């Protein structure tokens, strides 16, 4: 199986956990290694506990894995929480002046750095971090030059003296480790590949830019804020209108206004903000103005756990806004897919003039992944659907914005075109946009308009591919997941295979339309089906049952705020195959 190497760096918020994380990520990706990074943190600006896991390997690294090879605790708290989880062959590099190791497994190497003798800690506040990075690199068998380059870049040309000083500190750590610590059994490999390291939020934003989004609006809310930051940083140069708006009601209505004027408009939020947007999704559907709304899920309900992940907003999306209307819901499968999905969903919503909803989650939004740059297509196909952007003389006086058609889609003229002026309305309306319930209600028209809009569902279903089964057809067990659990289930399957249990996987990316018949067909020969999801009630399991009557044999659910690790799924599958357990709720072994 894919050999990987994981580093865990932890400390209090404000202690500089991010910087070593960034440095390792850069060095790994420049060695042509794949990597996956996940930061467990709290809703606090200083203090608290943050723990960053970076896992690298030659093959794609789809999740944070089960174990850590190298622990770098920046404070005692991190040492106490994580040391006991290191296994044989693992190592812990720590500041011997301030941190005491505790109980640990046999075969764990404790690497005590005499920080105050190696560096002048009165001058360099982050000396312990820099020394540890240097030491780590030596133990991983990476030449010092790689680190020197990254440090120089970090301080830029502006502060060469500071760069020199930090390089000297890093060097001291590197040399000390070479002399006193035992290197890891396998030096970190190197390939000639080149990967980009992206967070899901960055990928969502870049996907938007690639799709030709011209209007982005948002109100900050973790874990979606990174999307806003990307647009705020690059919007001006990229020619994208970016607005930070007073609340999510304003955010989504502004996006609708812009989309109404004919541009691609997008916004991102988390569950709480999405709740406020519900009303406007109805407007988008009724007025047939396509927009894309991203919900980066965090653990709910209410303010919930702002810095923890969950897949708990599916039913909110399925039920958002009152009344029946066609909607498109998709969940990206990994960080690269955060990029690819956006142009795809825009093409669908533009074509069918409906709201498009993207169910991302904290795990992807704030996680980081190495992505092959060739996967990032900045010129994906763009299909704006039937749009009228210039007067062509055909419609003079006779243009009907909501013309009843077989497909349910009516050609959409943007405002300001002579001959194509029209009324857009949140009230039920006739083909020309005029309300049908002012003096009396014309129920025949109401029915016709309702059916016109709902007919789009057929077209949408045809435009969106059904899911496929990954892995052997005749597997012992079929694991069903949706969205961000793709990678961890994939790795769990590989681990199960090593233990003699074959597993295949049905991973859902398009949630609405669901393609129920295709799913039933894929599952009809399954020996045992288990649905894996990051929520309490089995939101997808209930949705699948409501759409197809399909009832899975078992469930694996996690709702403690942390994502699945592969062994959680492996252990649960074994437990379910061995006995009559049908619901497993793995527990997270460490408080982060």
């Amino acid at each position, binding site marked *: 199986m894919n050999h990987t190497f994981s580093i865990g760096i932890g400390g209090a918020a404000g202690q500089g956990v991010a910087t070593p994380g960034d440095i390792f990520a850069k060095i790994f*990706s420049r060695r042509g290694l794949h990597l996956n990074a996940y930061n467990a943190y709290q809703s606090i600006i200083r203090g608290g506990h943050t723990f960053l896991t970076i896992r690298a390997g030659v093959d794609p690294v789809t999740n944070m894995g089960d174990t850590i090879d190298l622990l770098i605790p920046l404070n005692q708290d991190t040492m106490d929480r994580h040391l006991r989880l290191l296994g044989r062959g693992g190592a812990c590099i720590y500041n011997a002046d301030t941190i005491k190791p505790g109980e640990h497994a046999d075969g764990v190497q404790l690497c005590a750095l005499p920080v105050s003798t190696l560096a002048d800690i009165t001058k360099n506040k982050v000396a312990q971090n820099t020394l540890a990075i240097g030491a780590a690199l030596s133990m991983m068998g990476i030449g010092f030059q790689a680190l020197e380059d990254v440090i120089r870049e970090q301080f830029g040309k502006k502060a060469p003296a500071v760069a020199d000083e930090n390089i000297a500190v890093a060097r001291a750590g590197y040399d000390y480790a070479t002399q006193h610590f035992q290197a890891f059994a396998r030096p970190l490999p190197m390939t000639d590949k080149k*990967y*980009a*390291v*992206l967070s899901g939020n*960055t990928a969502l934003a870049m996907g938007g*830019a*690639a799709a*030709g989004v*011209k*209007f982005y*609006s948002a109100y900050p809310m973790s874990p979606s804020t990174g999307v806003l930051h990307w647009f705020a940083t*690059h919007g*001006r*140069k*990229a*020619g*994208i*209108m970016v*607005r930070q*708006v*007073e609340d999510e*009601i*304003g*955010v989504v*209505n*502004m996006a*609708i*206004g*812009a*989309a*109404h*004027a*004919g*541009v691609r*408009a997008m916004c991102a939020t988390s569950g709480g903000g999405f709740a406020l947007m519900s*009303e*406007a999704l*109805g*407007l988008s559907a009724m007025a047939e103005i396509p927009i894309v709304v991203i919900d980066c899920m965090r653990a709910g309900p209410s303010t919930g756990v702002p810095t923890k992940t969950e897949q708990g907003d599916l039913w909110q999306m399925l039920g958002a806004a009152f009344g029946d209307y066609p909607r498109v819901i998709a969940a990206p499968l990994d960080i690269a897919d955060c990029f690819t999905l956006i142009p795809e969903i825009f093409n669908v919503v533009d074509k069918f003039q409906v709201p498009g909803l993207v169910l991302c989650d904290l795990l992807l939004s704030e996680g980081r992944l190495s992505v092959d*740059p060739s996967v990032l297509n*900045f*010129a994906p196909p*763009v299909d704006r659907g039937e749009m009228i*952007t210039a007067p062509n003389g055909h419609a003079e006086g006779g243009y009907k914005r909501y013309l009843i058609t077989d497909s349910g889609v009516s050609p959409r003229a*943007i*405002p*300001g075109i*002579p001959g194509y*002026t*029209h*009324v*857009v*309305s*949140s*009230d039920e309306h006739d083909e020309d*946009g*005029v*309300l049908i319930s*002012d003096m009396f209600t014309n129920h025949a028209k109401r029915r016709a308009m309702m059916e016109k809009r709902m007919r789009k569902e057929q077209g949408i279903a045809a435009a969106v591919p059904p899911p496929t089964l990954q892995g052997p057809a005749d597997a012992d067990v079929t694991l069903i997941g949706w969205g961000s659990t793709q990678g961890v289930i994939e790795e769990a399957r590989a681990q199960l295979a090593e233990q003699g249990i074959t597993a295949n996987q049905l991973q859902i990316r398009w949630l609405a339309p669901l393609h129920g018949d295709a799913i039933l067909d894929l599952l009809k020969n399954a020996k045992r089906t288990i649905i894996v999801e990051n929520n309490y009630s089995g939101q997808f399991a209930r949705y699948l049952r409501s759409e197809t009557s399909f009832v899975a044999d078992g469930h694996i659910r996690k709702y403690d705020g942390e994502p699945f690790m592969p062994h959680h799924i492996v252990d649960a599958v074994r437990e379910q195959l061995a006995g009559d357990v049908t619901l497993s709720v793995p527990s997270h072994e460490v408080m982060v």
Partner: protein
Amino acid sequence: MAATATPGPKVNRIGLPVLEYRGGKTTLCAGCGHNAISERIIDALYEMGVQPERVMKLSGIGCSSKSPAYFLSRAHSFNSVHGRMPSVATGALLANRTMMGLGVSGDGDTASIGIGQFVHLMRRNLNLIYIIEDNGVYGLTKGQFSATADIGSKLKTGVVNDLPAIDTCSLAIQLGATFVGRSFSGDKKQLLTMLKAAMAHKGTVMLDVISPCVTFNDHEGSTRSYKYMQDHEEPVGEVGFVPSFEEIDVEYEEGSSFDVEMHDGSHLRLKKLPENYDPTDRAVAVRTLMEAHENNEILTGVFYIDTQKPAFTDLLNLVDEPLALLPQSRTRPPKKVLDEVMSKHL
């Protein structure tokens, strides 16, 4: 194009008869103030010679918000959701800055459910005329008090309003709207003049137009009835307007008069103002409004104007053409920008 070139009905300066500015037949109650406002909007658009297709009508929900259906059928219209017109308008006008935004809202739509959106809209100074058709009640839901109803005023049922009114004009002035006034649906001349001046302004115009609801709020004890307005309307001065395409007359009284040259060369002339009233001074405007309210007067006229502050769209990095009309080569970020972005991730 000139009025004399074609025989037939009288036409305006762009050659359109007033008929072309009309809308559908109103379904509001006979005598509703909102209908009179629609009439004045038609007159103002006609007299200003506005190209109908260049107008984007926007509204929320309420009797008042239905009004856009009753004027300028040849324009584009967006009847949005209750209280959300400000953000829809912002998005639409940012994506297409060539359109003239004409928003119609109600006092419930603005000062109750939409107050959050309203205050943030006022801060933006977007190019938009925002009209509140203010009757002190929610007409469409059968006459409950709105947040602009005066404390102590009575519903037909005898219910007394126990909360102070929100003064949308004071709010708009404080928050950054650059043309703020109040009028009365029954004051044809003043309202028409103010609407025409509004159409010449660049930035946000906020007009609160008292518009009696004959069905639910036109009785004794109401402070938004026709009778109450006749007795208590107090113009802050006389509003005069000379559009850019008309010869400007030379004589105008110094002293209590105020002449403002607007962006397009039109002139707004405020005459017979109280001594020391300066319509470019926010503090004076707000104090005058508060004093009038304490004296149970409903002050009308143009209270505040600022022709210097740039409109929102001028502050943004916007191209002039509607964003939807940009070719695909310009909708995606330039390659140089993308390369620069990507270099940070490698």
